[in-house]
């Protein structure tokens, strides 16, 4: 059994999950400078809704679509009911609101769904693919593929579309954006819908590997947040690279040092990187205009 290759496959599998969660953070952050701590709950909702819809007899692709749409709607509701009324409040206050929302969604899911662990069937079976003495599950390829597609889509969105640029403009200066005719409220709503949809997609893809229960969101959001910070908050490329790197650090530490220290080592590396590059690997240098 080839150890290094197996560690790399493990790192890529876990890293792709982190990257998908990290990508969800970028849009809301880009639109409002707010780190949405309910992002992990969107991931959980994606998984849970798909599981329950699938158990109720809806075919898997349709159940997944339903989960993405419903979660996007919950994202919009979160924006309309909790974030918009607090418009004008400092960013820190809004971040705290998202923490509250995360607790609320978790509690509600516990009641609406249940407290058990659930799993979705793998999309393309469970037969491992053997490459050079190591193995990877087909579902891992789905997650890695999903992360790549979302990354490319986001990158095109922010650089090639007017709406994407309007999102960046809203974050940069809300008043100026309004002056040039951007509907900043609609942009905020859109950013929450998209972030929630990406989170839900992450949940759908990752659930066959990670399993899902009402309380998985916190741990996922923490890892996704760390990945996004490592790569540079708000940059899709940073989210992708940061997620994959974090997964690889963990797998290699578990493989070569000790599994006891894998999370500690991963976070020490992140701290070291942020110490040298406070904006993360790909973060934009922020210049405050006076």
């Amino acid at each position: 059994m080839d150890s290094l290759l197996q560690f790399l496959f493990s790192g890529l599998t876990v890293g792709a999950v982190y990257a998908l969660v990290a990508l969800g953070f970028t849009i809301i952050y880009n639109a409002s400078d707010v780190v949405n701590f309910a992002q992990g709950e969107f991931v959980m909702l994606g998984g849970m809704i798909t599981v329950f819809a699938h158990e109720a007899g809806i075919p898997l692709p349709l159940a997944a679509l339903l989960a993405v749409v419903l979660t996007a709607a919950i994202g919009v509701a979160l924006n309309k009911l909790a974030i918009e009324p607090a418009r004008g409040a400092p960013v820190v206050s809004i971040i705290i609101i998202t923490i509250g929302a995360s607790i609320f969604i978790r509690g509600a899911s516990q009641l609406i769904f249940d407290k058990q662990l659930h799993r979705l069937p793998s999309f393309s079976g469970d037969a491992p693919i053997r490459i050079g003495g190591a193995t990877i599950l087909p579902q891992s390829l789905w997650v890695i593929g999903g992360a790549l597609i979302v990354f490319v889509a986001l990158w095109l969105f922010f650089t090639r579309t007017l709406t994407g640029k309007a999102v960046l403009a809203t974050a940069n200066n809300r008043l100026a954006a309004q002056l040039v005719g951007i509907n900043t409220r609609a942009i905020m709503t859109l950013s929450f819908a998209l972030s929630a949809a990406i989170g839900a997609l992450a949940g759908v893809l990752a659930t066959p590997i990670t399993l899902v229960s009402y309380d998985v969101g916190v741990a996922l959001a923490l890892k996704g947040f760390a990945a996004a910070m490592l790569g540079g908050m708000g940059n899709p490329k940073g989210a992708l690279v940061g997620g994959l790197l974090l997964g690889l650090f963990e797998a290699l530490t578990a493989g070569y040092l000790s599994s006891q220290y894998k999370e500690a080592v991963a976070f020490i590396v992140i701290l070291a990187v942020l110490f040298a590059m406070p904006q993360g690997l790909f973060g934009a240098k922020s210049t405050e205009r006076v």
Partner: protein
Amino acid sequence: MKTTMTLTGLTLALLASTAHAELRLGASLSATGPAAFLGDPEAKTLEMLVEELNANGGINGEDVVLTLYDDGGDPNKARTFATRLIEDDGVVAIIGGSTTGTTMAIADLADGEGIPFISLAGAVSIIDPVREFVFKTPHTDRMACEKIFTDMQAQGTTVIGMISGTDGFGASMQAQCKDVAGDYDITIAADETYGPGDADMTPQLTNIANTDGIQAVLNPGFGQGPAVVTRNYAQLGIDLPLYQSHGVASNGFIELAGADAAEGVRLPGTALLIADILPDDDPQKEVATTYKAAFEEQAGQPVSTFGGYAHDAFALMVDAMTRAGSDDPQDIRDALEATSGLIGTTGTYTFSETDHLGLDLSAFRMLEIVDGGWSAID
């Protein structure tokens, strides 16, 4: 007129106090919160059994009144509720403490106030050293290690690898297994861990598989970790026996891991889990099937080992109260300690002055997962 009414009232009150004397039983369980998967079936079991008992005439003609609190897995709340049970509700006995943490909070109080207390938590430290008023129903993780090692020894296994969860359950059992491994001439050549929320354990398993001389792998853990380990084990195609702990002895585990990946996994479980396939002459057959049928009908969810712990605690308490024939906590405690050969879903209990758990290794059945279901090895 007024006198008649007062008289009638008095008579009624007198009648009530004689015919409807009641035994007050207290419980503090973690029906919600992180330990809800323990406390939820336990609470449902107690409520169901009390109702059933009273419908059948109670204990020596007295109804049992259950006061049940939900401590949410928080030891501080458990202590508050235990105080309330003893001082305000005037209970004569307490069942509870779904977790070791909440149990310890209640145990100090119950032992100090002289109220018999049966815990539903795992740790060996609850009954070792023995405290006068503290008993427990679940077997310990040390016993699970011993049961697993006995089976390994029978297979001629001497060198094993361990991969344990870092949560409380996994860490405690890891320590206990390492402690008793020597007694069974078993060497732990690889000792890996994983976080409770981890999604991939292939690096740890690769290292275990690449360690020289490993003959079997043991995974003490709880929740999603063991399911992921089992799936990764199949993914890597490791051709060694995989042992799981009693922490995952439920049908949910087979579903989460997938029947293919779980094929051949061995673990120690209780008779309750295989109630349907127990031979008819098994002493636990009747208790296990009766409780399983009643619980599944009442709660609409599959029976779990944890609900079984509550069932056994209640059966022990009822048995002791019946024999004590009084509602004095001291008498109930003495009767409890004299329990001999009481058959529960977890095992057959015989308490003594030095043993407040009262189970031996025969309480565990070594099970193997075959064709997506359970089968008994011994």
